[in-house]
């Protein structure tokens, strides 16, 4: 796991992960001071919950995908990928080791958010607390299942087409899946377009993994009989993107 250790040591040394930890762990408390939670105490906890999860998402997109893209491009262009190839570390293995190192820095972000929600923003009633715990647990699991393949995709696309393209591919897919898919649904309904309907069906529906509204309005966790279906859906997307990433990844930039 030499490339894993090298990537992890490099990321640790760069220290930008400290910024992410601050943004996810500290900034939400500051943001709530300028939110409507200052006027209405009942809104403070939902504001904190929403802020911390939003920061986790922003950090994953801007730091996570950018870092993955940068590592993918650098591995291909710096000669390191070629060196590892000659020592028997295949391209697939290189992608996995880099992905594992980057993802190990991303994993704490949703865990910090969940911890803040549970420890600092839990509802006071016991029944609601159980629901709160379950919702945050589900959010953290779905968050990781959604982000994992996008990190690999950023790395793979960047190894072939450059870091900007890699970053834009994954961040574009994430934002589209969270917010853009809804507009496509409207288009499909209003214009009766078969193409729009097909696009909507085949798009990644990341909004299903975003229970922010459930946290904000205390709507309760996703039903446990439906949660495995969601996991299977995003697990399927994970497999497709993992395969695509492996096909796209290049350990050496061609001359």
């Amino acid at each position: 796991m030499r490339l894993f250790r090298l990537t992890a040591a490099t990321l640790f040394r760069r220290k930008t992960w400290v910024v992410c930890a601050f943004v996810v762990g500290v900034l939400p408390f500051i943001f709530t001071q300028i939110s409507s939670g200052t006027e209405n105490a009942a809104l403070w906890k939902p504001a904190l919950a929403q802020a911390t999860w939003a920061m986790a998402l922003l950090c994953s997109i801007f730091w996570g995908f950018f870092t993955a893209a940068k590592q993918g491009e650098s591995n291909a262009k710096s000669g390191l990928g070629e060196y590892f190839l000659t020592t028997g570390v295949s391209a697939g293995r290189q992608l996995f080791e880099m992905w594992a190192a980057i993802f190990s820095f991303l994993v704490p972000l949703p865990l910090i958010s969940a911890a803040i929600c549970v420890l600092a923003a839990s509802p006071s009633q016991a029944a609601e607390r159980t629901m709160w715990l379950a919702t945050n647990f589900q959010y953290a699991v779905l968050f990781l299942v959604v982000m994992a393949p996008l990190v690999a995709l950023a790395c793979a696309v960047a190894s072939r087409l450059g870091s900007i393209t890699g970053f834009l591919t994954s961040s574009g897919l994430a934002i589209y899946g969270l917010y853009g898919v809804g507009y496509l649904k409207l288009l499909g309904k209003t214009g009766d377009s078969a193409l729009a309907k097909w696009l909507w069906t085949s798009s990644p529906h990341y909004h299903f993994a975003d229970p922010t509204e459930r946290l904000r309005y205390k709507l309760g966790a996703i039903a446990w009989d439906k949660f495995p279906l969601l996991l299977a859906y995003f697990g399927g997307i994970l497999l497709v993107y993992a395969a695509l990433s492996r096909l796209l990844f290049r350990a050496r930039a061609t001359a």
Partner: protein
Amino acid sequence: MKLQTPELKLQAGLTIGYGKPIASTAEDIVLGGGTHFLIARNGRGKTTLLRTLSKTLKQVGGTFEARGKTQYLPEDLRFDPEITVAGIFRALLPAARVKDSIDLAARLELDVRKPYGKLSTGNRRKTHLIVAEHSVDPESGNILLLDEPFSGLDAYAREIFEDIWRSSSDRVLRLVSCHPDYDSMGMPSAIVIQGSGIRHTTGSEQTWSELKQQLN
């Protein structure tokens, strides 16, 4: 486990190139343990041959056999500018060999606490070479393909590495591409790419001075 002697066997007709052929061997070439130099004028195929033998580039034609654990050190290898030399050693080398690598760095006057991006060209080369030499498997035959490892390296460091090479010639085959900078440099075994031909020339008294005439 019996130590395997490293060997590179280039069959006659091995042709290298990027789609279009650049050069090929007219006869079989067999290289055993020890240091072999790879010389040619600029753009004649030294890196292409090294890439082919490291299997990161497919040969245009013909075959070769490589027996031993291979490492190819590209000339333009770069690590992340933020990571320190010590960090590189700890990440890439077996734990038991990190101390030796740091000791060698001290002999070579290489500051392992410095970030890689702040090193001079020569010190970066030292870093790469230390990683390669300490990644050698002592239980097996090894093949090191080194692309211009002397570029930017001072004479003192070069002598230290050449001593290491001499002491490990039984289990390590090194094919070293270079542009020698002094005529009396001994090259008892050299792969010469001249025109479209690749040949092997040997001689215990062979020096760069004689080979240079052939290339010109």
